[in-house]
């Protein structure tokens, strides 16, 4: 049953990734990308990793896609289909994708995965403790770095928004 679900979601991800890249209509490729992200969230749900799935939904699908849609709406000639990239670029992109695929496959096949009999549900309490712990398996440094990064982004956004007003 789970295998069936996995293949179903995997096919959705694959088909929509290809469609997202190949579509000549920007708005449509964004929507295909959204379906890819929803599929990834589905994979996380299948792994019973609910928290990451919800983060995927709210940050990527809910946040970044809306940001993309907003910025695309500001582009001129949005209704005109995009032109195909040049041959050399297509070749370069293809080579890069093959390289990326190779690296991922190598990483997956060279790592020895341990099979576990039971799935453990990660509770929010555990997540919180790990995020703020100094010891082993602690994530305090990345957590603080991201906090400072977000603060810097906020301050930067406010500074940019303010400066245009004073220039007038």
């Amino acid at each position, binding site marked *: 049953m789970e295998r069936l679900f996995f293949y179903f979601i995997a096919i959705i991800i694959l088909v929509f990734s290809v469609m997202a890249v190949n579509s000549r209509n920007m708005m449509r490729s964004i*929507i295909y990308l959204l379906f890819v992200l929803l599929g990834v969230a589905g994979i996380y749900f299948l792994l019973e990793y609910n928290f990451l799935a*919800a983060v995927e939904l709210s940050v990527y699908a809910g946040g970044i896609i809306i940001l993309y849609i907003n910025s695309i709406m500001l582009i001129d000639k949005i209704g005109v289909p995009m032109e195909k990239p040049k041959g050399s670029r297509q070749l370069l992109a293809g080579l890069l994708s093959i390289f990326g695929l190779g690296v991922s496959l190598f990483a997956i096949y060279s790592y020895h995965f341990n099979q576990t009999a039971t799935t453990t549900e990660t509770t929010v309490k555990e997540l919180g403790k790990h995020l703020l712990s100094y010891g082993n398996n602690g994530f305090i440094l990345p957590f603080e770095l991201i906090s400072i990064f977000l603060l810097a982004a906020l301050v930067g956004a406010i500074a940019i928004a303010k400066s245009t007003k004073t220039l007038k």
Partner: protein
Amino acid sequence: MIILSNFSNIHQWLLGLIQNAVATRVVELTIIALAYLAAFALIGLLLVLAERRIAAFFQLRLGPNRVGPWGLFQTVADALKLVSKELTGTVKADKFLYGLAPYFVIITALVSMSIIPFSKEVQVFDINIGIFFFISVSSLGVIGIFLAGWSSNNKYSLIGGMRTGIQMVSYELSVGMVVVTMVILSGTLQLSQIVALQQHTWFIFQGHVSAIIAFMVMMIASTAETNRTPFDLVEAESELGAGFHTEYSGMNFAYFFLSEFMNMFLSASIIVVLFFGGWLSPFGITAGIPFMGLFWFILKVSVVIFIFMWFRWTFPRLRIDQILTLEWKYLLPINMVNIVLMAALVWLGLTF
């Protein structure tokens, strides 16, 4: 994950009938899905009727009272009319996205409905990140509105869609922060546990000052989230026609209409779960009787929905700059201070 504790005899009966664990599971899931779809449609129709009756009450009219007893079948008749209507569309619209948009809105509402604890027995998906799942799924609904506005190929629709986007993304922040405030008090995200923790005192009394501030912010933010007056400039008739769904007709329009009412119901449910003890009866007066939880839950939700409707027919519509000022200059700082206040209350043990 699927709670069927009180329905175990139904489960046993089905298992005996089908004699196959997987097939039984599939049949059960199908039955639950159909039941939820039916409930979805029924709640939507009843809410539309309630809205019209309450509007009439506020405006000293009678409202729909001809079809069936007390006009009960008015919205059913309306729905039948909408089903039989022709689906029109603009010629130069992006047909794929145009057709997709209403489903986005209605499916997100349906998925969010699955985690609502209607009573101890009736909750489909008691996931351990419950309330976070609700927020992340309901944040997808706005994409449908964006798409509807953009793909209609209509200026008014586009402006309506953009306005919704700005408004919903802004007010989602407030809803999220209120939820964080209440999660500090509860210490869990799971909805069934949040309700269970309110066995003796509801959270609005447990967190007193901070919870009351959070409740008021939540009422404002939910009204804005569901695009209802005074925040309905998305579909301000005098400025934008019907906003993002100007170009939709028949059932496609009905999906938007229905999901708007469902979102109101879902917001009210979340408010009831977070502040008023969900399906728990006041002072535990009906604690022993099965299925009374459903009654109390629906009663509480109805009261909250009545307040939403009261807002709608009392306040005039805001301008877009006023809406953004309200969110970013007032609600956001209030919320930030409130989170710290709640954390201090919990830390010092000042909660009841």
